[in-house]
């Protein structure tokens, strides 16, 4: 539409993620490196899945609409599975790297914990996934027109931005839950991550009924947020203390500086 829509949608989609990056990751170069590596792994998974999809589309019947839709669904499912596979691959790589890092570093303790790695890699996956989802749409939002002349919904840009925001945060939560499940050998956790990822991707097929796709996505987002919080070590008591600003007393009681 105009520059205002462009900036609005950009900030909606990437705002929280960039804020997370700036406040929690940017200061530590090691975290930045692992974030970028995570983004790269996601990119490779996308490349592979798009290659497969491209080849299957070329050999398919281009005129048949049902076949093309079927191929699209197949492509989405394959992409999700490949992304999760690459997340697992990254986990294995990080485990190996951590041992190497420990050997190299001067200190006795690990420079970065596996939980931090989970968070950082999830956010890296999220950044790259968000970029690929929304950058194309953002560039078209700069022009003077908005979607709708062929009867599509007007809320295309803002829905895409909110969906992208949800996906980025979801990738971060999935990363945390996934790595935790791998550490604890809880394979049902892995399955839950994969299935929720599939659900979120496939629910986008009901678009342009945006309420049908955004609401389930955000429900899953809040569930995964709570799960990730619990995996990361949080509890309801801590949350209440934090939110009601009784943390000062708590810290004093535990002899920790603020």
């Amino acid at each position, binding site marked *: 539409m105009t520059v205002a*829509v462009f900036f609005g949608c950009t*900030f909606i989609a990437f705002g929280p993620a960039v804020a997370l990056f700036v406040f929690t990751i940017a200061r530590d170069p090691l975290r930045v490196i692992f974030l970028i590596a995570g983004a790269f792994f996601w990119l490779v998974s996308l490349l592979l899945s798009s290659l497969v999809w491209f080849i299957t589309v070329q050999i398919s019947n281009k005129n048949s609409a049902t076949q093309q839709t079927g191929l699209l669904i197949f492509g989405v499912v394959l992409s999700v599975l490949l992304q999760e596979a690459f997340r697992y691959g990254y986990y294995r790589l990080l485990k190996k790297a951590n041992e190497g890092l420990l050997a190299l570093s001067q200190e006795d303790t690990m420079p970065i914990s596996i939980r931090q790695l989970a968070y950082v890699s999830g956010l890296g996956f999220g950044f790259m996934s968000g970029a690929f989802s929304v950058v194309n749409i953002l560039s078209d939002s700069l022009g*003077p*027109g*908005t979607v709708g*002349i062929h009867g599509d919904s007007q809320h295309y840009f803002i829905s895409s931005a909110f969906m992208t925001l949800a996906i980025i945060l979801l990738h971060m939560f999935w990363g945390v839950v996934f790595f935790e499940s791998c550490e604890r050998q809880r394979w049902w956790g892995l399955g839950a991550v994969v299935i929720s990822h599939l659900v979120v991707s496939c629910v986008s097929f009901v678009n342009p009924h945006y309420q049908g796709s955004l609401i389930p996505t955000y429900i899953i987002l809040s569930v995964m947020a709570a799960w990730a919080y619990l995996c990361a070590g949080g509890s309801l008591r801590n949350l209440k*203390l934090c939110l009601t600003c009784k943390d000062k007393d708590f810290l004093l009681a535990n002899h920790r500086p603020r």
Partner: protein
Amino acid sequence: MTDLISINCVKLLISALFYTCVLCSSVEQKIYVVLNETVPCVRLLNATHQIGCQSSISGDTGVLHVLETESDLDWILSSGPHPPYMVIMETAFFNRSVMMRMKNSSRVAGVAVIISKTGLADNFSPHTTCPNQNTGVYSESYGSDLANCNGTVWNPLGNGLSYEDFSFPVFALKDENQTQVLRKCYEDHNQRVNGSAPQYPLCAMQLFSHMHAVTDTVTCMRRTDLQNRFSINPEVLCDPLSDFNVWTSTRPLNNSAKGHAADESVVIAATRLDGRSFFWEQAPAAEGTVSGIVTLLATIQALYPVTQEAPPPRNIFFSFFQGEAFDYIGSSKMVYDMEKNDFVIDMNNVHSMLEIGQVGLRSGRSLWMHSDPVSRQNKSVDTEVSEEEGKLSLFSHALSRSPSFTLSLSLSQPLPPSSFQRFLRARRIPGLVLADHNTSFTNRYYESMYDDAENLNVTYPPGLTPDEQLVYETDAAKSLAEVATLVARSLYLQAGGEEKNLNNITADPKIVSHMTSTNTHTHTLTLTLSLSLSLSPSLSLSLSHTHRHMTSSHTPPVTRFVQYILANLTGTVTNLTESQCQNPSELSTENKDLFSYFWVSGPASVNGTREPFCVRASVRLSKAVSPAFELLEYGSRNYSTWTESRWKSIRARIFLVASRELEVMQPALVELTETKQKNISAKTEIMFIK
């Protein structure tokens, strides 16, 4: 080796991925509907002014509104709540008063004019009332009481729209399907319900027609010169209007011998080749120009065989001048070349001149001869005048021989706008201009898009196939054939031919029918014996430089068309081979100075094959660019200084626009999230302590 192969395979795969678009359903296609057929109005400049239309460099956007009634006009100009508006103008509203109000308003982003016959007023001429008033023969020093149309206003219905400068784009909508798309978008989104304003989202249109040149020719050519001299990648801003004149003669003239031709006395028969209208490259000019071209071509067809059998003492020189609408570009160039001894003949060779003006609308079967009263009044050149009068009476005597119409002499009036005026400026030669009007033009659509075959009353009985229409002798064709016969016979007499041969000179209405047919078969530039070319609907002056970005025009340049028809009518078939035809100077029997050689693909035979052959004719092209550009006098008052601006892209598209509130709301949402973030990050320690 295997590494190289695998690397190459990977490279091939990656490049294939990049360059193949599997499913091009991009977001852009959801937003924009691109209009394919765009007919813009472009900017032209002369020594002192700029005319035409301009858009901003990133296009002009406006909310669509269809202008059908007076209340719509009021809505657009004052009361509508969503300015600026992109006006879709019905035909009836495309007049001077409405366009001037649009020009003075800041609420108009652009205009798209629907071109149709419904609602068309009974006259529309965007040209000025006095065409070419500053570059004709009448001025302060010559016939000052006749200058600036003080004597006769030639185009009283002219509203001068073509010569106004608009700061917004004006496009023409000729394609009915495209107009329907626009109307549908307007009806779906922009229509007023019960007098209240329409709600967002609204249908809007964006027009791109950014012109590079500004102010006038002097400024533009100066900037172009600077670019050419100092820039690594010079950017030309405007181009002088230029094309070619077409000329031929009954006796071949030596093209390499410039200057005065010995023992040649020439009668010039001339007409114009171009037309114009408000929009770019749209100029049917049926009555304004085509009638003259067809008549002169039919004249040549009638006269040529007789002049070969019984040649008259004087040579007859037929000339088609290009660019006459823009201050006589073609004729001023030819006169300039003649005076500079840079042409096959010079002014001393010219005996007299007969020009064919607008001759298509002969109501009451009358034809008028116009002459210049000033040159005839000059008593000091007595012998010349009496010679002129003698010749003129011979002319009129010859012309009025035919009983099928009346011929009248227009005595007290100035000459109408014609190429003959430029010849008179150089030398007082006797001459006449033939026209179907006495005082002002009978053409009610002079130099407009509506001067088409219908204006010429070319009508066919119902039920004819296109091929039958080609050979049907319409009334218009018969009328033009009569004029052609007359002109041919009078030219023969004027050239000193004998009266006994006059009866063999008759123009064939069938050829004239061919040429005025409104058929829209695809055009072929190759000559076929059946002459199935139809006269193209556009006679606008084409520019000769090759750096045009424009989409290919689907009408062949008229210059080529006339050149090939002339070659067909006056040429002889030779049995040269293709290489000989292209290099005839190698043969001793052929003379490249006297003739030009055309390799023609021939008529299509029954099984589709063609047998090409070489045609030799004395048809030539001569460059028609204003002498002002050769003399580098860009601000010249004597010669035409018209240039056309260059542009990068001309296109149009429609889309929906949303309200400003929706746009502004979105960044506000984002501010909330950012502030929360910092608070939370400060409390991470507390949140994750066990």
